[in-house]
C-alpha cells in the first residue's frame, strides 16, 4: 500500500483496548561467550 512519506511517530495507548494484545516476546538473553582458553605455550625443548 502506498501511503506517502512518513510525517511523525506517535504513541497511542487506548484506555480501553479493542481486543487482547498478544504477549510481548521476552527479550533474548545475552549469550555468554565461553571463557577463552588460554593460549597454549609450546613446551620448551
Amino acid at each position, binding site marked *: 500500500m502506498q501511503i506517502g512519506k512518513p510525517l511523525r511517530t506517535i504513541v*497511542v495507548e487506548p484506555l480501553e483496548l479493542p*481486543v487482547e494484545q498478544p504477549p510481548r516476546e521476552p527479550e533474548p538473553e545475552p549469550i555468554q561467550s565461553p571463557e577463552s582458553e588460554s593460549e597454549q605455550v609450546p613446551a620448551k625443548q
Partner: protein
Amino acid sequence: MSIPDYISPIVGYRGWTWDTKGLKSLCGQRWHPGLALAARCRASAVVGTIAGRVEGHDSHEAPQAECTCGVYAAKSLEPLRKNGYDRCGIYGEVCLWGTVVEHERGWRAQLAYPKNLFLSLDALPFTLAEIWPRLQALTLYGSDIFVLDNDQTISLWGKRFGFDPAGLDYLIERSTGHEQQ
C-alpha cells in the same frame, strides 16, 4: 514513563482476503479472532544485494520511521480504491495503536484489529453452503459485518445482535436467484 499522544485507537482503512479460517493480509499474514495483530519487522530476514547495495538490517521493534515495517492502513478509502484493494474481497476500518508512524496518506502501526468489515459482492460465493462457513469464521472477530451491493450497504452481522434477518434474507434471495438461472 512516557505520556501517550492519544488515548483512543486511530482508525484507518485496509483490505483483506478471507477464507473459511478467517482474515489474511494481502501479504498472507493471518489475523486471529480476538487477538490484536502485532507487527514484526522482517526486513532483517530479506538481507540481500540489490543493485550492488546490501539491503536489510538488524531486527527491531516495529514500526520504525526509517523502516517500512508495521501494519499498514490508509487514512481514507481513496488510496484503497485507487490501488484496487477494495476489490480484494473484504475491506473495512481497522483500529491501530501502540507505536504508530503517521504518513501523508496512511499509517504504519504496532498493533491492529479490524473494527468493521465490508464484503464486496464480487467476493461473495453464490451458494449458502459456501458462504456460511466463511461468514461464521468472520463473526468470530466480533467486528460488524456489512455487504455492499452497488450503493446499498446491508447489515449482515453485528456484535450486539448477531445476524441481521434482513441481511440473511438478502443472501438467501441472491443464492436462490443464482440457482434458478
